[in-house]
């Protein structure tokens, strides 16, 4: 099992992360990546100047490490890579990068999906969007909560060799 979990204070480049991930895996047949990026516009169309992510001491990283450990316990993946930005993020910059590798296509997809659902609802960050006229705190949406709830009691479908 090979993992990399990191909180970074400055902009990072997802293609470079994918490169680093692929370099440290073996001959796994399936690699899935997810990149979450800051938007320039809120749901109501208003401009967003920046997304600010607050973290808290060692707790933020350890919350991510727990999510990664749970993911490896739940799905037959051999490697994962999780980078999370903290601080002030401009539109189109990346917030989070997640990658998984497995012999099995379904396992790689499901594990990346699960990682994101857990990060959205459990990683210790607080987010606010800064607009021209103030800022708005962003909490997990109902969709985020129901996405995360999908996995409760659900065993991986990906235990059979592909």
């Amino acid at each position, binding site marked *: 099992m090979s993992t990399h979990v990191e909180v970074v204070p400055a902009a990072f480049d997802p293609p470079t992360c994918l490169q680093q991930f692929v370099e440290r895996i073996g001959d796994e047949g399936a690699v899935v990546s997810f990149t979450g990026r800051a938007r320039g516009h809120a749901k109501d169309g208003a401009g967003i100047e920046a997304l600010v992510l607050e973290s*808290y001491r060692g707790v933020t990283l350890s919350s991510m490490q727990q999510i990664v450990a749970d993911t490896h316990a739940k799905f037959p993946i051999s490697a994962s890579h999780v980078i999370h930005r903290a601080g002030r993020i401009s539109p189109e910059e990346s917030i989070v990068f997640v990658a998984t590798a497995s012999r099995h296509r379904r396992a790689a997809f499901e594990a990346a999906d699960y990682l994101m659902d857990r990060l959205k609802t*459990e990683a210790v960050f*607080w987010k*606010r969007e800064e607009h021209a006229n103030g800022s708005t705190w962003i909490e997990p949406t109902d969709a985020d909560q129901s996405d995360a709830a999908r996995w409760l009691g659900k065993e991986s479908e990906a235990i059979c060799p592909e």
Partner: protein
Amino acid sequence: MERAINVELCGKLADSYGGSVTLYIAPCGLPVRELFEAVSSAYPLLEPILASGSVRACVNEVIVPDHAIIHQGDTAALFPPVSGG
């Protein structure tokens, strides 16, 4: 003798009084549920959020249950709902 501790306020909890507030704690410590009451009482703008049931306490970098005890010298923080990604 009571001693002051800083309680760090994370996320939206910092909107009213800034990033931390001060409380006094007896040598025998303070259960987390009483910490919530003490903060609500001393900093009333925080009362609605603390009463919502969605705030968790973090002591020495571990999220703790309501019956945990905060001691003098501990690092305490209050977490509103988190969201990564």
